[in-house]
């Protein structure tokens, strides 16, 4: 599938599911933020076996910022790895696709997310066991000390098959990261011994190029994104970190997304 269509479909999937979640609401803006990151991974970068989710040779995608679970489910659905029925069961009581993913290899969910700062250490364990690993972190998540324990370790051991993508949208639950906790994220990763790359996190082609390059030490891609990307009233709006959509808002959001100029 064309990357632009893959990403556009994902956005529509996310909004439609979030609307159907009704009063439960969903983490809509954090999901829209990492659409292209997941599109790049699931539409060309990740190696997976379409008929066997347990295939040990598969690449591992660890969504450490688990609140973007809806975006992960949308990517799995667009890649044909889960069924429409599965996708439509988002936030069903007792279902396999809750707000924050719960490890379920049969359903292609590699990691239980939700508690921030957990995914990188787990990804390192997978890489030490010989797997090719991609970990998606939030920039707010990088406030967690445990991230830096892991970053130092991976840098020290020069773990090769490990790539982190930071969804760098400059926002977190309480607002702008710049107002909450500032640090030079690029220098932090460099100091830990990582190759640091930067790109537009809404440019699938740029992401794919960065994700394809071989590296002999761990690599982090600082993917510059916009929280709530594609929906004017959600972009950089703190209240859409987790929210509920009305029918009118859904209609407006879908119309804004259709034929958008990102996800190329």
């Amino acid at each position, binding site marked *: 599938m064309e990357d632009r269509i893959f990403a556009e479909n994902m956005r529509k999937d996310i909004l439609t599911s979030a609307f159907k979640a009704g009063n439960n609401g969903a983490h809509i803006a954090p999901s829209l933020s990492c659409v292209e990151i997941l599109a790049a991974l699931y539409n060309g970068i990740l190696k997976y076996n379409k008929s066997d989710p347990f295939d*040990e040779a598969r690449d591992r995608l660890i969504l450490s910022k688990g609140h973007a679970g809806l975006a992960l489910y949308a990517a799995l659905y667009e890649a044909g790895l889960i069924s429409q029925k599965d996708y439509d069961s988002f936030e069903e009581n007792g279902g396999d696709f809750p707000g924050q993913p*719960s*490890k379920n290899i049969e359903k292609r969910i590699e*990691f*239980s997310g939700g*508690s921030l700062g*957990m995914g*990188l*250490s*787990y*990804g*390192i*364990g*997978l*890489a*030490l*066991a*010989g*797997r090719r690993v991609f970990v998606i972190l939030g920039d707010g998540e990088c406030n967690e*000390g*445990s991230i830096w*324990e*892991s970053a*130092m*370790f991976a840098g*020290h051991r020069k773990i090769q098959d490990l790539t982190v993508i930071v969804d760098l949208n400059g926002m977190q639950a309480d607002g702008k990261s710049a107002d909450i906790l500032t640090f030079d994220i690029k220098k932090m990763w460099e100091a830990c011994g990582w190759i640091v790359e930067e790109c537009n996190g809404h440019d699938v082609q740029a992401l794919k190029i960065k994700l394809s390059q071989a590296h002999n030490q761990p690599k982090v891609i600082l993917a510059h994104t916009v929280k709530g990307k594609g929906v004017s009233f959600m972009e950089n709006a703190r209240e859409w970190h987790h929210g509920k959509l009305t029918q009118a808002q859904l209609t407006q959001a879908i119309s804004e997304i259709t034929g958008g100029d990102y996800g190329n």
Partner: protein
Amino acid sequence: MEIKPSYLRTLSMLGQRGVFGTTLTQLAEQNENIVALAADLCNTSGLDRFQKTFPQRFYNTGIAEQNMIGIAAGLASCGKIPFAATFSNFASLRSCEQVRHFLGYMRENVKLVGFGAGFSFGMFGTTHYALEDIAALRAINNVIILSPADGLATLKAVEAAAKISAPVYLRLSGTMNNPIVYQQDFDFEIGKAITLRNGSDIVIMATGSMVYNALKAAEKLEEDDISVKVVDIHTVKPLDVQAVTAACDAKLIVSVEEHSTIGGLGSAIEETMALKSRRPAHLIIGTKPFYPHAGEYAYMHDVHDLTPEKIALKIKNTYEEICK
């Protein structure tokens, strides 16, 4: 299997940490999936021989216990059998949420080894005591808690942990040259308590380092014609419910642990007995509710009334009160 006294003396001399390290190295020779992790405490963990023998299967994370547990979980998800060791306090409280997330929620096959439980590191002081580890980890679903009584029991606990496909917290207590509880070979089955001595008036259920002291206390009580059964609860979770039910026939149940009286073995026994209509009184013996000034291991036992003499006295007083 015949076990020579000299071998038991070696296990005693090594202490539980030493036995853990040597046993794991031996197991690793037979099972290539076994790997070990330490957080800058390789020697203290008893893992120096493992590191030298299997450098490619040993990971030192630096002083980063939370990261160590996450890495262990990732390795476990790929079929490795990781043993991750650090002080009990750091394994359980510093990394509590990692234990809940990776061992409890995700059920990864990690063996978390906490050493220095109770007051084992006497002079190090409160930061290095583990008095709340059982309480914290017992509340986490899916985690087996093992607490061996001596060197031979530790050897068997490590073997059992490696064999079972489930997350385990292995609580190591005592010091080097620890007293010998098991003089001969025995069957160690996870979840099955072991009766070490029979008696009809009182049942003492003890765990870890306190099993030996409980046996000694029972001997003293026998001198006063009080008949005491002693049971080794080497598996604190899942607790041997049958053993607790059987103990309800006694006039008094006593639990002894080198741990807070809140949330540990005593609480586990009490939770099990709560619904029984016919049950005896239960004396919960554990550490006192304050953080003490540091001192040698024996001194700490004395301050907290955990010596055999003080345990026996407390039990005798309670028993006489009940029998009035």
